[in-house]
């Protein structure tokens, strides 16, 4: 079941979706149980930005048909504090040696986002310097400050940004594509040509909900951030189509995610070409689900 991914030897193909598992908080909640049986074969951090962000005002969650809308707004402590405070804690939890060597450890993938090529370059450069970080995932679902559209929504713009920043790190670079685009395959191809070592998808679909008190007029958006992103079972069939479209276009490895709840869903993504599968929202329902999926996946593989 071990998988090679961008030069990393992973124990199994199941990792977490960025922003859906806070290993440091989880250690507070679950104690050493967590380190003893860490469910993911690599750990992806929440998106880190240059400056600290508070995130959106509450409410941040809405339960939709077959899924969850979140309007979290990428709260994080900012690059500097992440590197100074979180990295040592993560290294300890994941079993990483000081030089990043990790026999038997869980490699750390740091997810970053910037609103411009300059910001992204700075983020990549800073991560490159840290041995604890095994790979970098670049979230390009961030709205471009100029156009308001996701930086990753247009293949040409995406390639341009990536070419400008690629040289800043020699670590594996995973580009997390935006699903809110006309042609995700073209975006993936552009990422590959501009030097991405892997692509990951799908991020959440733009979605919204109105406040449930239906009598008052005008009704307000429920979420503090106005709109949010849909995840969970509702997006699974869309994710499968996008992962299939991307895997058919690129030669680099693909990390598939979106609504995975069990090993069959993970298998679907692998069958259309994903190398790794990430679990997000289902982890909220059961933090142990990643390990269970990895285990069941092995049984399916052996059974075939």
């Amino acid at each position: 079941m071990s998988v090679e991914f961008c030069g990393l030897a992973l124990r199994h193909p199941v990792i977490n979706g960025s922003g859906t598992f806070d290993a440091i908080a989880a250690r507070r909640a679950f104690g050493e149980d967590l380190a003893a049986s860490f469910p993911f074969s690599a750990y992806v951090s929440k998106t880190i930005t240059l400056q600290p962000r508070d995130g959106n005002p509450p409410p941040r969650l809405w339960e939709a048909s077959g899924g969850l809308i979140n309007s979290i707004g990428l709260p994080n402590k900012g690059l500097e504090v992440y590197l100074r405070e979180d990295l040592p804690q993560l290294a300890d939890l994941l079993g990483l040696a000081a030089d990043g060597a990790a026999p038997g450890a869980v490699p750390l993938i740091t997810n970053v986002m910037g609103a411009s090529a300059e910001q992204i370059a700075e983020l990549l450069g800073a991560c490159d310097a840290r041995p604890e970080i095994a790979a970098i995932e670049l979230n390009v679902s961030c709205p471009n400050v100029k156009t308001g559209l996701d930086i990753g929504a247009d293949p040409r713009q995406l390639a341009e940004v990536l070419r400008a920043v690629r040289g800043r790190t020699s670590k594996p670079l995973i580009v997390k594509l935006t699903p809110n685009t006309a042609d995700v395959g073209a975006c993936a191809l552009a990422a590959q040509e501009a030097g991405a070592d892997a692509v990951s998808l799908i991020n959440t679909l733009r979605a919204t909900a109105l406040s449930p008190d239906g009598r008052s007029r005008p009704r307000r958006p429920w979420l503090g951030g106005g709109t949010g992103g849909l995840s969970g079972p509702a997006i699974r069939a869309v994710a499968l189509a996008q992962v299939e479209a991307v895997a058919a276009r690129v030669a680099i490895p693909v990390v598939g995610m979106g609504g995975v709840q069990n090993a069959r869903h993970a298998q679907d993504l692998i069958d259309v070409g994903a190398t790794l599968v990430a679990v997000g929202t289902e982890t909220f329902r059961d933090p142990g689900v990643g390990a269970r999926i990895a285990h069941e996946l092995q049984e399916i593989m052996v059974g075939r």
Partner: protein
Amino acid sequence: MSEAPFARRALTVTGMDELGAYRLLRVADPDGPEPQAGQFAMLAAAERWGGGEEERPYLPRAFSIARRSDGESQFLLEDVGPGSRRLCELQAGDRLWTLGPLGRGFVAPSAGRRAVLVGGGVGIAPLAILQDALAAAGAEAAETTVLLGFRDAARAEGAALLAGARVATDDGSAGHHGLVTDLLEAEIRRDPDVVVYACGPAGMLEGVRALCERADTPAQLALEAHMACGFGACFGCVVPRRGGGYLRVCVDGPVIDAGALERVDEHAGAPA
């Protein structure tokens, strides 16, 4: 703070009691960790969770651990939506997905200070286990004041969960006609050397917070928030922190020192 096993567990329902307008769900958990008063668990029925209108409930729901004895955990439920409704339907023998105990509970009063427990509606739940813990720690029943507010007499029957409670109702159908904060105000005026432990709807908690701030009385507020995970993963359950930024109710709380809050957010309270 007690740590939770790292995966949800299927526990068996041992009973469901009526308590006025509320239900008391009893669950066998002989091997589970002993919770701290104020901690909570994420609950989901193992069967038929979902499938209602809009396919909800989908995520598990947070419930305070209301009492713990002889390997049994108790939860006080109010039917306010699809999730709590489904849980209220559970019967002995049914299975319940449970993740917990989670979060930071109440901190014992510093020496020389009496505890005043202030609850509103279904928010009385964590005060019951707190009362048990105070008693176990040697507090005389007479030392602990329990003030509970409810909308009406049917809900006020929930007061039976705690010993020696004084009750207020919005409609005057039981106890003091008015707000539980009226009782608290009088209590603090009588004896300011107390620690207030409060849980209830946002408006009530904000009343308690403001009152205690004015009286310079320490207060620990057990907050609520819509939660997706309960263990710090989703950042969905935040309340504004005094001085800026947000706190996650599930890992920084649910019990939060009143001094850490500017005001209690409208989304941070229990049903009234």
